[in-house]
Structures are given as C-alpha cells and as structure tokens.
C-alpha cells in the first residue's frame, strides 16, 4: 500500500513538471540489452532521433531480462512520461504492465519485436518484415542469375529462432518457380562469424569448391565469416561464389565495396524514427497510427556507394 502511495506521490510530483513544459516531451525507452551490434546501433539511433526532436529520452537497459523491463516500465509510469518505447525481450507476459500504462494513459509503442497481448494495449508496433527480407534476397538472386543454373548453399541463423525460420521461408518464396535455382545444402551458422566460417568450410569440402554458385546467409556476420573460408579455399568470394545476406552491417558494406560480397538487405536500426513520428502525431492531435508500421527492407548492391554508407554506419556502435 505504502509502496503504491509512494509511486502515486512521485507521479503527482512529476506531473506538473511535464505539464509545464509541454514542448519538451519525456519518453521512456526500455531496450533489451546490447547482445548484438545491431542492437547497439538501434540504441544509438534512438538516442540520436530523440535528441534531434528535442525529446528527453529516459533509457533503460534490461540486460536481456523481462523482469528488468517490467520494472523499467513501472518506473516510467511512476515518473509520468509522455510515452514509452518498448523493445520486448520475449513475446508473453506483458498484459499486466501494459494495462497499468493504459490506465495511466501513457501510449506504448513496440519496437523491433511484437508481443502476444491484446493490440488495444499498445499504440502501434514498428518492426521489419523478416519474411519480406528473405524474399527480397531470393528475388535479387533470381534476377542476378537470369535463368542460369545455380546451386545455392544456405547459412541459417540459430535453429528455431524466428529470424532463421522467417528468412528461410522468405528466401524460398523468392526463388519459388525458378527451377534453375536450387538450395543444395542448408546448415546453421548460429548467426556468428566463427560458425559461418566453419560451416562454409564444410560446404566447400562436401560439394567441391567449383560446384557452389551462390551463398545465402541469414545475417551478414555469417557471410563475413564464410568469405574468409572461400578465400582460404582459393576462390574469389563475390565472383566465383555470389554472396547475398541480410542486415547491412558496416562490415558487409565494406565487403561489397571490396567486391567480396554482392548484396545485403538492410534491417534498419532506425525503428525509433517512425515510432516517434507516430507518437508525436498521436500526442499532438490524437491521430491513431496503423497497428503495424513496417520498416523498409532496402537492398544494397555494388551499385550503391557502400564506402560512404560504411563510414556513416561505423559510428553507430555496430
């Protein structure tokens, strides 16, 4: 009881401050952690976006734990923030805290991942479409091969993870109906460089170096590892074996600029841009955004200025 009273007192005490400076929005951002370079870049971009809009961003790193995120959300509610950005670590168990936010009339926007909760409990979800990313990769390879026969090897993400399942499904959709393209080997590289290299070595042995025409990797890190394996086998990555992957991390841009990789599809770290656009519009005049905002899955090939993108992305903390 006393705890709730304290929370309430805190909220009341903070409320006038928030009301007084109505131009200065205060937004809480509960981030999963920094388990990958992409995640670190998402945090950096979110902070940049908030700063550019003059928003006071309260950042909470949950270190991959849902209880930390729930605590952070309760903290934001007690502080009476104007909105909450949430990158949920898991899909379930959010109903209670989202209801609390709703009762406090604080809109919550989901970033990068969605939750298993009633959609009325959050304002909108900003995510990429993983299946679409795979499909873009597949379609690019179809047009690149232009009817030529092509034996493809696939480096999957962590077995059973949703990006691995969806990016595989999408790629298969992308190449469906093109009999000249065939996935001959598919194995997990756990989304890491080291495993990507090890598994590519085994592909090269098992298939014979000259019998692989293209590599599709579920993320860039595995592709970067595979590039080293291809080089050590005496082949030219990007020429002897066409390489397409997903994420568009800086090192992939560098590899494309060096001619060692052919294409990558961007998983943009800028989820905060669309999220804050939607939130500001909602707070200003109550515009309800769509329940799902899909970010763009942009294709980068050798025709883009990859060196410039590399320089620009390098500082984001990938």
């Amino acid at each position: 009881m006393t705890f709730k009273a304290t929370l309430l007192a805190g909220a009341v005490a903070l409320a006038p401050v928030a009301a007084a400076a109505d131009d200065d929005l205060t937004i809480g951002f509960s981030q999963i952690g920094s388990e990958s370079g992409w995640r670190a870049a998402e945090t950096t971009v979110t902070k940049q976006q908030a700063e550019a809009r003059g928003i006071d961003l309260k950042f909470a790193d949950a270190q991959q734990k849902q209880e930390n995120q729930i605590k952070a959300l309760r903290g934001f509610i007690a502080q009476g923030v104007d909105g909450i950005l949430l990158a949920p670590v898991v899909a379930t168990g959010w109903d209670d805290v989202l209801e609390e936010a709703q009762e406090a009339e604080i809109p919550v926007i989901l970033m990068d991942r969605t939750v298993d909760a009633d959609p009325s409990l959050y304002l909108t979800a900003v995510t990429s479409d993983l299946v679409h990313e795979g499909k873009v990769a597949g379609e690019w390879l179809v047009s690149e091969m232009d009817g030529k026969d092509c034996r493809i090897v696939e480096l999957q993400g962590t077995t059973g993870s949703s990006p691995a399942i969806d990016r595989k499904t999408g790629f298969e959709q992308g190449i469906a109906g093109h009999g000249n393209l065939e996935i001959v080997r598919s194995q997990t590289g756990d989304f890491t460089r080291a495993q990507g290299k090890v598994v590519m070595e085994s592909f090269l042995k098992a298939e014979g170096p000259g019998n692989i025409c293209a590599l599709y990797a579920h993320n860039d890190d595995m592709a970067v590892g595979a590039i080293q394996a291809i080089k050590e086998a005496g082949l030219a990555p990007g020429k002897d074996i066409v390489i397409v992957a997903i994420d568009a991390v800086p090192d992939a841009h560098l590899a494309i600029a060096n001619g060692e990789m052919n294409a990558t599809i961007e998983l943009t770290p800028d989820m905060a841009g669309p999220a804050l656009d939607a939130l500001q519009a909602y707070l200003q005049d109550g515009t309800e955004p769509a329940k799902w905002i899909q970010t763009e899955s942009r294709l980068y090939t050798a025709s883009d200025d990859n060196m410039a993108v590399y320089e620009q992305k390098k500082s984001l903390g990938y």
Partner: protein
Amino acid sequence: MAASHSPLRRLAPQLVILAAVLALNLAVFPDFFRIEFQNGRLFGGVVDVLNRGAPTAILAIGMTLVIATKGIDLSVGAVMAIAGACAAKIVADGHGWGTALAGALAAGAACGIWNGVLVAWLRIQPIVATLVLMVAGRGIAQLVTEGTILTFLNEGLIHLGAGTILGIPTPVVIWIALGAGVTWAVRKTALGLLIEAIGINAAASRLAGINARVLLTCVYLVSGLCAALAGVIVAADIKGADANNAGLWMELDAILAVVIGGNSLLGGRFSITASLLGALIIQSVNSAILLSGMPPEFNLVIKAVLILAILVIQSPRIGHWLYILRASGGDPAPRRAKTVKETAR
C-alpha cells in the same frame, strides 16, 4: 616398468572411438581422407578436424590438469573472449602482434591467478569460484570491445589463427606443440605426480610436504593461459574479437573432452594425450554432422546420441562386462598378474 606397454592400453578406448567416428565421416563423405596441397596449405577433411579442434584441444590441456586436482574451470570460455578482445584492442591501438599475444596471455594469466587464489587460498569450491569469472568475464570482454565486433587486419596476429606453418594450419602446430610440451613437463618431472596427489587426497599430500596452494594456483594459471591462447586463435581465425560469441559454451566442450579422455572428474590420475584425443573425437562428431547434410534441427540430437554412446561404452560397468567376457573366453592367467601390478602402482 610397464610404461612401454601401458600408454597404448590406456589410450585404446579413445583410439577405437576416434577411428569409429572417423569411419562415420568417411561414410557420409567419401573424400574425407583426401588431402590436397592447395593455395600453399593442406586442404581436406582431416585437416579441418585437426584445425577446428584446436581451441577445444588447447582448453582440454589446461582443463585436464585442473580436473586432476579434483577441481574444474568453468571460466575458460569467458577467458577466451577476454583474451581475444585484449589482443584485438592492442593491435587496433597500433601495436604489433607480439605485444598483442603477450597482452592476451597476460590477461589470461591474471584470470587464472584470480581463480587459483579463490580456490587455493580462500578455499571456495572450484565450481563456484570459477563460475564468478564465467559470468563476469564476458562482460569484461564486452567492456574491452565496447560491445562491437572489433576487427583487425594485422597479418601477424591473423597468421596465428588462419595462417600456415609449412602448409600446416598454425592452430594445429600450436596445439600439438603445447600438448607435447605440457605432457613432457608433467611426466618427465614430479609435477604430474604432485598434481595427482592433490587430486586423490589433498590433506595427505599437504602432510607429505606438497605445497598445494602454490601448485593449485599454478594449475589454474596454466588453464588461464591455455584459454587465452585459444581465445587469440579464435579471434585471429575470423579477424575480429566477438565478445558475445567467442568461446561461448566452450568450457563444456573442454570438460567433455577430458571426460571422453577417460579422466575422472574426482581427480587423480590423468592423461593429457587422452584428453586431446577426446577433443578430436568431439570435433570429428561435429564434422560428421556438418558433412552429412542433415537439416540443422537434428544437429544437437545426433551429437547427444553419439556422445551418449561414447560415454556408455566407456562406463565402468560396461568395461567390467567386457573384462568378464574376455576373461571367460581367453586365458585369464596373465591378465590377473597385470591387474595386480596396476593396483600396486
């Protein structure tokens, strides 16, 4: 002494299992044993097993010594990440590969001494003491790399992981040399005997005048150094330090290698050669899974079944049955004489 005869006998189960797993590789990939000289380096399935098994093998050397003292070192995976991160950081700051290797080894030594002090001087149980660094170590590595994959282009450092010496991949040369060196050091001096004494009965060894504290600290120090070397190799292999994934769960592979090597987790007699064979068996299993082209959903199941089969075959009860089977079939007299000798040892 029975020394001329006993090493092969000691290693027989591991050699038979290794041969069986290699035969499995041959079954799924007929060209497995073909070795070509390509691009200035040996190229083939067996070379891959030797090369990819290097980190586990190097960890297993240190882990064998730790386990022989009735201890365990759970922190080696995290120490790998720290050492890789330090090496990458040092070359990124413009120093040479020698400095980077020395710095990484120093970091590994510091981690090893930390574990040793916790175990030997503060008397914390090894599994708990090394758990501290297992959990915290990855965080330290992330602090060093600032959360990114720290890439480098230093040729000397890369050579340690991806280069060759006379056509043989450098990691293979490193682990064979290190294994031979440490085996020589513990078997040609009293060191091995002292380590075994601590593992069998710490109190008695202390009363016999063995300085258990210093020796225990040294054993964890060696484990830390081995982990650091493995960490540098893994980082050099991908030309980057990946603090999140480098050495992840490797401590379990290292312990498994020691166990497959027939060493008891209760300490005492140990064989580094058997642990190294254990590491090769694990890598051969991995290689067979990758070459088989099975869907990745089956990877862990296949690995679990194979490892389970290996451990069951090695279990004392099965060994006893085999002994009875052989004793009842053949001439039991000379065998009995040997048993007496072994007990006497």
